[in-house]
């Protein structure tokens, strides 16, 4: 699958500067964490690698990635004060500049850890340019997910449900589905669906009808 599919991956995003990779892209990695985390985290820890570690201050990466983690969009003026907003909400925010190479082999890598009580989420993503991101590693619902990286994907925990045959049928017949993978760790199961393109609103509803717990991460 191609990394860039839409003309608006190139002409866009509309965003607050200064950097599409280090500001808008970092924010997009934060948004993935926001979508996957239930409720508000007590702690957000950001690990930066390579170019991100070297230039996060100058590129506004810190406020951007926290803004994304709080669910803000990249053209929202409030992103500039996101760190203060997070702290005011009682979230402990930490930034760590890693000296070692990126675990996913890209110079613009950020790893986000979010914790609240027993809930723990890790999103390791890279910003590939022009605001586009890839997310090759996620720890979600106590499962380690090794992914292709390219978005869009949809994923959902199957903790309380078995993997019924009608799921397989939908996955095989839905024209939006490129492929799918089932990740298992101890008693935990996560279904990951690789999508051919961003689903339209109607297609999202169709997907959610079969898989109510699904979270769609658009590309």
């Amino acid at each position: 699958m191609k990394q860039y599919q839409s003309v608006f991956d190139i002409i866009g995003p509309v965003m607050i500067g200064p950097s599409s990779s280090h500001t808008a892209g970092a924010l997009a990695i934060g948004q993935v964490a926001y979508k996957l985390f239930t409720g508000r985290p007590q702690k957000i820890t950001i690990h930066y690698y390579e170019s991100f570690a070297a230039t996060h201050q100058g590129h506004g990466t810190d406020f951007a990635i926290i803004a994304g983690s709080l669910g803000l969009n990249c053209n929202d003026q409030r992103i500039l004060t996101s760190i203060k907003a997070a702290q005011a909400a009682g979230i402990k925010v930490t930034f760590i500049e890693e000296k070692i190479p990126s675990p996913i082999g890209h110079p613009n890598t950020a790893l986000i850890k979010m914790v609240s009580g027993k809930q723990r989420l890790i999103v390791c993503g890279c910003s590939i340019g022009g605001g586009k991101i890839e997310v090759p590693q996620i720890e979600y619902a106590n499962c380690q997910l090794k992914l292709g990286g390219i978005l869009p994907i949809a994923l959902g925990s199957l903790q309380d449900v078995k993997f019924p045959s009608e799921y397989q049928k939908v996955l095989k017949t839905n024209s939006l589905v490129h492929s799918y993978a089932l990740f298992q760790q101890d008693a935990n199961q996560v279904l990951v669906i690789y999508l051919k393109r961003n689903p339209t609103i109607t297609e999202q509803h169709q997907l959610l009808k079969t898989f109510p717990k699904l979270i769609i991460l658009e590309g």
Partner: protein
Amino acid sequence: MFNTIKELVTQSQLQKQPLWQTMLDSEQQATKQQASEIWQQMQARYQVMKTAIERGSQGKGVHSPTGLTGGEAVKLKNYRETHQTLSGSTFLMAVQAAVATNEVNASMGVICATPTAGSSGTVPGVLFYLRDRLQLSQQQCLQFLLTTGAVGLVIANNAMIAGAAGGCQAEVGSAAAMAAAAAVEAAGGTPQQSSEAIAIALSNLLGLVCDPVAGLVEIPCVKRNAIGTTDALVAADMALAGCTSKIPADEVIAAMADIGRQMPKQLRETGLGGLAATPTGKKIKMQIFGKKFPADL
């Protein structure tokens, strides 16, 4: 859908249609959206570009929180209006628009990435200059942006558009190639001439490193976009004059990717080499990060 510049040109030739139409067809196919929705989204981006140029060119202009960049689009405007310029007053309009956009970007204002924020001045610089010079309608301006997007998609998928991955050649170089192709088309050139303009514009910026002082998107990014617009316009004029590139556009793009991969990391958006590593560059970094970064307050 097209994967290379050659495919983009050939498909347009076969269908006897401009490059922007081939992009529009492909976009409809890829996203299952109506053409009207696509035009609408492009219109919104066009408006953001226009607003940024106006903001950067009015009054005292805009200034970044660090104070390192800003106000130079206004200087260019005043100079244009009161002097016999060397490169021509209208030509400098493109430069002014590009600088205005990147000054807004550095000031953490709203811009549209084309293809990136660091290179966000180049495409609008060329577009808003040609809008006046060629009397382009708004619809033609949106078509211009579709064509730039088509070229950008090919470059992004076959090479890279991030400075951290391939240096500034991947950002301003790509933006110049995108704008050059669309400029040719806006002036009535053929798809093949657009392809020549891409090859010429990108060839001229091959090897350009990403060496931002203090890791900010200010020095030299703002002025690199001035060069991006002029490179695009000169390449477009050359192609329209019938000049050709012996190395085809797709091979120039492949060369750009190759050079990007060979570039040491000091010159790929780490702020460790080039201008960032000069005595003055290091001093600026100390001055800024000795205190807390303004935007984080």
